[in-house]
């Protein structure tokens, strides 16, 4: 494949920062099709329009996801990217893999594809960028048989579940994120590999409210670790922080010139619910007001720890701005036990209640968060059989109309709708 003139792209190699153009030129030395990526991209810059088309019928037998067809709309000029399909490989829980596994995966991709990767996609998959249709089945065979790995989700499937590294390294994890991520990945193989829903559906598991996988912003079903009882306080360690003997934030910011640690300024005054205060030299917390922001625990990890009665909060309906704007997930279940002893039965029960409803009520290409917004939170809570609590309410109501169902009013009421409609047409 010919090297193309790319004057505009070449500009992106100037300056002190890393350049994807330089990376792709280097890759083109062994995979000449990468020249055609650069050539087509230069053409897109000239034409101010993409020259990629994507989608179609490509895939591997038995699977309805994991591969996204991608084609050039100018294949005569750039034959190396006539087919340039994307493959999503299900990442290991917590993104733990050995260098041996990574090397084997890269060898596989050098053999069947362009060698270009995106580590990782926003759902968490390892993304292999650029191969031809005829390479898909042999690659899939080697991936599954030699490496013991599988494709992830795409399209209207359950997307590849992802999680933080959880209890493997983090003392704040309130449940075993990796175990539930793996267990539900296996439990829902059919939903991951074949389309099931009106649109995509994502699970993400964070061990605590620091939410290292941004579950609350990126997943339809966010399971975020929390605790039911009080934050554990070691008053002796609090004194050590005040005395400057323990570094704040575990020493993460120790190279900056922050001055001596100031408990009031750096912790108490920054508490979003103002639920902390000092009594003499003892730190007090009104735990009923704590909203699990994690700030105090992050700053003083040797003095403060999550409570002992651990579980998770379930938030539903986050999404990126494709049809409507971006939205955060809404807290639906404040506390749920997360236990491998019951094989996550209670979590599965919540998931399937959502699916049964959304598959029926959700419109095509409507994320569950958009369906929730369309029907309103009260309706969604009743579908989920969740009693509303004050924490579900974002702000005092501005709508003066209150609608009561008959069963909500003591004694009920009777109304003949036919008779009513004679006087008030719908």
């Amino acid at each position, binding site marked *: 494949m010919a090297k193309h003139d790319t004057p505009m792209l070449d500009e992106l190699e100037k300056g002190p920062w890393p350049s994807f153009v330089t990376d792709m030129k280097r890759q083109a030395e062994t995979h000449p099709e990468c020249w055609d990526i650069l050539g087509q991209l230069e053409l897109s810059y000239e034409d101010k329009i993409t020259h*990629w*088309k*994507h*989608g*179609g*019928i*490509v*895939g591997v037998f*038995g699977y*309805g*996801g994991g591969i*996204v*067809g*991608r*084609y050039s709309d100018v294949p005569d000029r750039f034959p190396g990217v006539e087919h340039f399909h*994307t493959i999503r490989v299900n990442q290991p829980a917590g993104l733990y893999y050995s260098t041996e596994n990574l090397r084997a995966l890269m060898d596989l991709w050098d053999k069947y594809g362009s060698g270009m990767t995106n580590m990782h996609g926003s759902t968490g998959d390892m993304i292999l960028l650029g191969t031809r*249709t005829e390479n898909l089945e042999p690659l899939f065979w080697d991936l599954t048989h030699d490496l013991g790995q599988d494709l992830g989700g*795409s*399209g*209207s*499937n359950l997307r590849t579940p992802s999680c933080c590294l959880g209890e493997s390294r983090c003392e704040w994890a309130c449940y075993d994120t990796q175990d539930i991520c793996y267990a539900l990945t296996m439990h829902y193989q*059919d939903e991951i590999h*074949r*389309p*099931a*829903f*009106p*649109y*995509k559906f994502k699970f993400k598991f964070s061990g605590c409210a620091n939410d290292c996988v941004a579950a609350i912003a990126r997943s339809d079903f966010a399971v975020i670790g929390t605790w039911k009882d009080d934050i554990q306080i070691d008053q002796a360690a609090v004194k050590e922080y005040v005395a400057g003997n323990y570094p704040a934030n575990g020493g993460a910011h120790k190279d900056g010139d922050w001055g001596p640690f100031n408990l009031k300024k750096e912790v108490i005054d920054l508490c979003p619910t103002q639920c902390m205060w000092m009594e003499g030299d003892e730190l007090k917390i009104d735990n009923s007001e704590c909203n699990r922001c994690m700030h105090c625990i992050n700053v003083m990890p040797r003095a403060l720890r999550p409570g002992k009665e651990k579980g998770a909060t379930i938030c539903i309906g986050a999404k990126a701005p*494709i049809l409507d704007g971006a939205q955060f997930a809404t807290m639906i279940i404040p506390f749920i036990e997360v236990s491998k002893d019951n094989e996550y039965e209670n979590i599965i029960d919540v998931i399937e209640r959502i*699916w*049964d409803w959304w*598959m*029926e009520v959700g*419109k*095509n*290409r409507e994320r569950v968060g958009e369906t929730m917004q369309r029907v309103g939170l009260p309706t969604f809570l009743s579908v989920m059989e969740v009693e509303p609590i004050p924490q579900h309410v974002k702000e005092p109501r501005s709508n003066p109309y209150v609608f009561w169902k008959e069963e909500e009013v003591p004694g009920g009421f009777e109304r003949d709708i036919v008779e009513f409609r004679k006087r008030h047409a719908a």
Partner: protein
Amino acid sequence: MAMSVEEVEAAIIEKAKKAPKPQLYIKDFYKCAPDMKPRQIKKIANKLVEKGELMFWSSGSTTMYARPDRIKDEEGAEGIN
């Protein structure tokens, strides 16, 4: 009386043959078996893909179903990922 799986399969294939557009969303099949749960219909539609009666057509973000004889080639779709 509830429809048998074979009857639902036949209704889905008929719908896929006659719909104005070759690609159909899973929801388009719900009316083929109004008394059946959507997850059950999904399983039947996916079984039809295994049998070669239907095939998947994906834009990358959304997956649809189509009759193989109504999809001509592997041209990509315009759309979002």
